C-alpha cells in the first residue's frame, strides 16, 4: 500500500465504487479487527460516542445482527428501526424518514431497502454516512467484502482463482457485488444456473456465463450456490424446487469436478436440499460460518473507515 493512500469514502454504496486499493485496505483493516471478537472482553473504544442507526425496510437477521455486534464491539451506540416499505401515497417518504433520523445526529445510517439505488438516493438527500446493507437487486457490499475476506483467508490470494457462482444471479445483490469484487481483485468469475435466472449482459460486469453448472464448477477454487427465493415465484422462473435441486443444486457429485480443496460458500440463509445439499453444507469444505464470522470484522472495518479511521 502506498503511503499516500487515503480511504476517502464517506458512504459505502457498492463494490462498484471502490478501487482495488480501497478493497485491499478494507480487507486488511478487517483482518486486524478480527482478533477483537476473540478476546474475552470484546470491546475497543474506537467508536465510543458514535451513533449507528440500522434502518431496515426488509427482514434480516444475520446482516442486521452482524452490523449491530460490529458497532457495539467498537463501542458505538446502536439503534435499530424496522420500517415497512413506505408506499408512494401513504406513510412517510424515505427521504423524510432519513431526514428525521439525521436530525437526531447519528454518525452512520446502515440501510437495507427493497429498491435498487435506495442508498444512492439517500446520499443525495442527507449528509450522514450511509452504508448499504443491501438495496434491491443492486449491491450488498459488506457481503461481497466478507466473501473476498473469507477466500483470501483460506486461499492466501484472490487473483487467478476460479470462482463459480450458481443460481439466481438475476435477483441476487450478493452475486452482483461478488462478481464486481472478485473480478476487480483478479479472480475469474463464472456464473451458471437456469437461463431464467441469468440477467442480460451480465458478462459485461465481469462474469463468464456457462450453460451448464458442470462447466462453471469444473476446476473451481470457490463454489457459491445462491439462495433460491420462494418470494420471487410470481414470475415463472423455475417449475419446482425439486427440479431445481436435481439440475442446479450443489451436491457431492457435482463438487467432484471442482478442485479437491474448493471452498463451498453461501451468503445465507441456506435452503438445505434445494441449492445446497445438507452434507455439503456441513462438510469440511464449507466455510459458510467463517463468512458469518468475517462479516462482523468487515462491518467493523467499514464503520471505522467511513468515520475517518485509517
Amino acid at each position, binding site marked *: 500500500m502506498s503511503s499516500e493512500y487515503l480511504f476517502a469514502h464517506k458512504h459505502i454504496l457498492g463494490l462498484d465504487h471502490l478501487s482495488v486499493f480501497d478493497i485491499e485496505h478494507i480487507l486488511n483493516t478487517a483482518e486486524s479487527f478480527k482478533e477483537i471478537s476473540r478476546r474475552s472482553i470484546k470491546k475497543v473504544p474506537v467508536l465510543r460516542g458514535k451513533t449507528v442507526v440500522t434502518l431496515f425496510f426488509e427482514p434480516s437477521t444475520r446482516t442486521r445482527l452482524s452490523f449491530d455486534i460490529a458497532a457495539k464491539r467498537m463501542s458505538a451506540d446502536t439503534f435499530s428501526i424496522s420500517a415497512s416499505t413506505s408506499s408512494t401515497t401513504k406513510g412517510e417518504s424515505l427521504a423524510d424518514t432519513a431526514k428525521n433520523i439525521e436530525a437526531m445526529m447519528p454518525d452512520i445510517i446502515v440501510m437495507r431497502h427493497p429498491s435498487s*439505488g435506495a442508498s444512492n438516493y439517500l446520499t*443525495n438527500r442527507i449528509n450522514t454516512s450511509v452504508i448499504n446493507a443491501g438495496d434491491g437487486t443492486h449491491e450488498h457490499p459488506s457481503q461481497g467484502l466478507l466473501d473476498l475476506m473469507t477466500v483470501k483467508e483460506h486461499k492466501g490470494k484472490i487473483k487467478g482463482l476460479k470462482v463459480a457462482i450458481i443460481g439466481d444471479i438475476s435477483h441476487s445483490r450478493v452475486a452482483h457485488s461478488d462478481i464486481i469484487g472478485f473480478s476487480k481483485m483478479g479472480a475469474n468469475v463464472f456464473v451458471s444456473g437456469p437461463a431464467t435466472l441469468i*440477467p442480460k*449482459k451480465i458478462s459485461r*460486469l465481469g462474469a463468464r456465463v456457462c450453460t451448464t453448472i458442470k462447466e462453471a464448477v469444473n476446476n473451481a477454487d470457490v463454489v457459491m450456490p445462491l439462495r433460491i427465493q420462494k418470494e420471487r415465484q410470481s414470475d415463472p422462473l423455475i417449475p419446482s424446487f425439486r427440479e431445481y435441486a436435481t439440475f442446479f443444486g450443489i451436491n457431492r457429485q457435482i463438487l467432484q469436478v471442482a478442485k479437491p480443496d474448493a471452498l463451498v460458500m453461501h451468503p445465507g440463509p441456506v435452503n438445505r436440499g434445494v441449492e445446497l445439499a445438507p452434507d455439503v453444507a456441513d462438510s469440511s469444505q464449507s466455510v459458510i460460518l467463517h463468512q458469518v464470522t468475517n462479516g462482523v470484522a468487515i462491518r467493523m472495518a467499514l464503520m471505522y473507515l467511513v468515520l475517518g479511521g485509517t
Partner: protein
Amino acid sequence: MIRTQAILLKNGRIIDPANRVDKKASLLVEKGKIQAIFTPRQKTPSLPKKLQSIDLRGKWIVPGLIDMHVHLREPGEEYKETIETGTRAAAAGGFTAVACMPNTTPVNDCQPVTRLILEKAENAYARVYPVGAISKGLQGESLAEFGEMKQAGAVAVTDDGKPVTDSQLMRRALEYASSHNVMVISHSEDYSLSRNGAINEGFVSTSMGLKGIPHIAEEIMVYRDLALAEYTGCPLHLAHISTQESINLIRLAKQKGSPVTAETGPHYFSLTEKDVKDYNTNAKMNPPLRTQKDLEAVIEAISDGTIDVIATDHAPHSILEKDIEFDQAANGIIGLETAVPLALALFRKGYINAARLVELLSTNPAKILGVKGGSLEIGSDADIAVIDPEHSFVLHEKDIVSKSKNSPFIGVKLQGKALLTICGGRITHNAISD
C-alpha cells in the same frame, strides 16, 4: 388572455411545407386570421393603423406546432398540471394545439368528461383536442362510446398509458372507430413482458439492479397492431415508438400500404439508457430510454418518413411521484418546452431540413388528427410559432412554465427557442423582449 390584434411579422423565414413555401417574407395577422404573406419585393398590402410590427430577421415563422400526445392531468390530478398550466407550457414551447390523453380521473371515456375538458379549455393558451378512451375506464374490457365522444369534440381514441391487451377488443376498436372517422392511437406494450420494469433491459438495468423492460415488449405489440390495421384496413397511429425493430416493422407496413402513422418523442432521439445516471427518476418513462442503436434507428426513421410525427408525451409528475425510490417512481417526463430545441438538434446535425421539422411538429399531426392548423394558408386561423433557431440557453427549473418540473434536460444547454406563439391571432407567448 390578450385580445386579438393586428400583428405584422416582418422579414422572417416563412416555412410552410403544406404550401411548399420556404422564403423570406412578412406575414400579416388581422382579425385572428392570416391576412397576407409578402416578400420585400412584393407590394406591401394596406396595413391597419393600429399594428404591432415585429422584426424577425433570422427567425423562422412556422405554422403553430401541434403536440398530439400530452397529459394535461385535468380532471383529477390538478396538482401536477391543469389545462391552463399545461397549455401555458405548450404556448411557451411554440405549440398552438395539444391533444390530451384520456387517463385522467375520471377517465375521458364518455361525452360529459370530453365536454368538461373542452369547457375548461375555453380560455386556455392553446387549442385542446381531447382524446377519448378506447375502453371504458381504461379497463381493457369494453368499448367506450366513440361516437358520442367525437360529437362532443374528441379527435381520437386511445388507452394510452396502458396497452389494449385483448386483441379482439383492439380489432373491434379499429373497426368501430373507422365508422366514426376517429383515429385509434395505440400504446403498444406487451405488459406481460414489461410488468414492473423500470428501464430498458440490458447492461444498464443489470448493473443498476433494476428490472428491465425488453425492447420486444414494444415490438410484439407493434406487430400485433400493425397486423390488425392491415387485416381490418382501418387507420392506426402508433404512439411513442422507441426501438429499432418497431421501426423496421412500421417501415414494412407502410411499404405494403397499410394505413398507419407513427410518432416518437424527443427523448428517444436525444437520450439513451445510459442517461439514467445515479437513479435519476427524471429519466424514467415508458417506453424507457433505449440504446444508441435504437436512437440511431429513430433518427433514421424521422428523416426517411417512417416516423410521421414528433410528439412529446408530456407527462407531468410532482416530486411526490418523482423524488422517491427509482422503482417506485412514476413513468414520464414533461416535454412541451424542450421539443423545439431537441428537434432543432436534428436539423443542425443535418438529419432533417427545416420543412421536414415543421411537418413533424405541425403539418402531419394536423393531418393525422384531422384538425385545423398545420399550414400558413391565407385566410386561415392565425396559429403561428416564431422560432429562433440559434438562441442558446441552459434549462433551469425555475424557468419551466409547466406546473411539474420532471425534465431530464434541466441543467442541459439547449439551442433553439419559441420566441412568439400566436393562437387564433392572440399572442399566447412572447419571449422577444427577453
